[in-house]
């Protein structure tokens, strides 16, 4: 079970990295979003899916029945929210790049690359 989850997580991260290497900015955006999903799956596996003494204990008992570690789930929940926020910010940049450059080709979005290059200022 753990091996299956680990392979799925690694596969998702691999796909995400492949998409992030694309020149197409929309694929880059999807890759960034997918990357946080893949990492969350791996976080879920790494935290252990079996039973571990959880931080929530009823009086008189030592553990909360047969349950997975709730702290990992709290971490993943936080990571999902953060990943979503970053995806939204990133999407805003890609949208803006599309509106000003009229393209989502990463090679054409190079205004920062050209800004202040050596030996170009004489033409400016």
């Amino acid at each position, binding site marked *: 079970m753990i091996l299956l989850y680990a392979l799925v997580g690694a596969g998702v991260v691999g796909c995400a990295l492949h998409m992030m290497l694309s020149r197409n900015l929309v694929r880059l955006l999807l890759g960034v979003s997918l990357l946080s999903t893949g990492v969350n799956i791996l976080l879920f596996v790494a935290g252990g899916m079996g039973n571990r003494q959880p*931080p929530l204990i009823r009086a008189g008992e030592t553990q909360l029945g047969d349950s997975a570690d709730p702290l990992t789930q709290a971490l993943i929940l936080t990571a999902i929210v953060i990943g979503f926020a970053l995806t939204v910010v990133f999407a805003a940049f890609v949208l803006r790049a599309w509106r000003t450059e009229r393209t989502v080709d990463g090679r054409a979005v190079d205004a920062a690359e050209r800004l202040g290059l050596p030996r170009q200022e004489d033409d400016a």
Partner: protein
Amino acid sequence: MSDGALLIAPVLIPLIGAAVAMLLRNRPDAARITGGVAIAVMTVASMLLLSRVVGTGVLPVMRFGGWPAGFAVSFVGDTLAALLTLVTGLVGTAAALFAHADVRARRRRAGFDAMLLALLGSVNGAFLTGDLFNLYVWFELALVAALSLITIDRARAAIDGAIRYATLSIAGASLILLGVGLVYGSTGTLDLATLGAILGDQPPVPATAVAGALMLAGFGLKAGLVPFHSWLTASYHSAPIAVSAVLAGLLTKMGFYALMRVMVAVYGIGAEGSGGAMYEPMLATIAILTMVGCALAALGQTDMRRILAWHVIAQVGYMAMGLAVATRAGLIAAIFYMVHSMLVQANLFLGAGVIHRATGSWGLRRAGGTMRTNPSFALLFAVPVLSLAGIPPLSGFWAKITVIRAGLGDGALMLVLAAFGAAMLTIVSMAAFWSEALWKAPPRGHRTRPVPAAMLWGMAVLSVGTVAISLQPHRLLALAQLSASALTMNVGGAR
């Protein structure tokens, strides 16, 4: 004020200020005043915190939500964290003063003050937190604030720079998160002090070794270390200059701080722990490449912001050298270097902004003449320029000499040679910078424009800080020693 309130004040005040400034952003004057007041109060709170910590030793750990140690998100007020929040306050104050002249109502309506406060609050949060996952959260918060500040004009170059910055930074954060997950999976805690006690003095098992390597890469990326540096030089020159100054002063140092916290306080590098011995050669290679490579790259640039961006990275290389030496002296040197560098880098970018205002150009060739037309600026700017070059008796000299002495003490000859080589290259680069931008006559037909006093006041805050370190280096050194002791306090506590 109670210890607990004092401990969270440097985080809570700017975050509350950010919320207020966001509500007031359609009234630029009110937003500006909110920003100024919040930064001033935050800086005073950091001063109180530092004096309390130095007076009483480490403050009691603050745990949120009433959870027991090991599960609660905790805030730890040790000397290092308190010292760095104070420096953050100084950089924030300088940027706010500079922004008084540089940031117009349009940028304030876009939320400049709120985002600046959010950035300062999250940087302070990363310094003060005692929880590994919480550290990651502060990094992401700082990233969102930094991206918003870079793109505040929605300029084409800024959008392009932000896309590059965001892509690499999110990838780095994912590595950190994976490392955090693996550490939690194999130890069952995220509390840095507990982790140091468990992992500090025993050889790592595969899971924690991989986690350490992932966090080395992730925090190394955030610190701008070679080979993870390319986001920095692709984005810092495209931001508004007051923003570049804050980012250059704070963000890479925040990344290095986290790297140091994890490598020293968890894996025991430099604390006579053996948990991180395998990372030391990697850190040494990274430090050498960063110092020499980036100092060389700076020589090839003619845009002031690009030159300074390369120097930001090169300076982090010196700090990494202190960490790679992996002795107590190395740690002390790295901490000293970090404080010196935060003040100097921010000041250099502010100075570049003044030169741009005076001459209308970011390029060195079309600048010039600012020394004769504005001697008070030249005096203020000479402090960070000479300090970066490492000319005695300024703070950069003391910082470099402590790092190199630590290297010699450990017999790390390659690191010491690289540090000397990079120091020479930095002197050449700064000499060229000074003679082109300040010394030479302005190009024919160019008139220099007057510079608003607020810009010079912003620089003055940082220059006075640098001069204070230069004249009293033993005081900062004493604080750095206390910080190193606090960092290594919990390592191997399970023995």
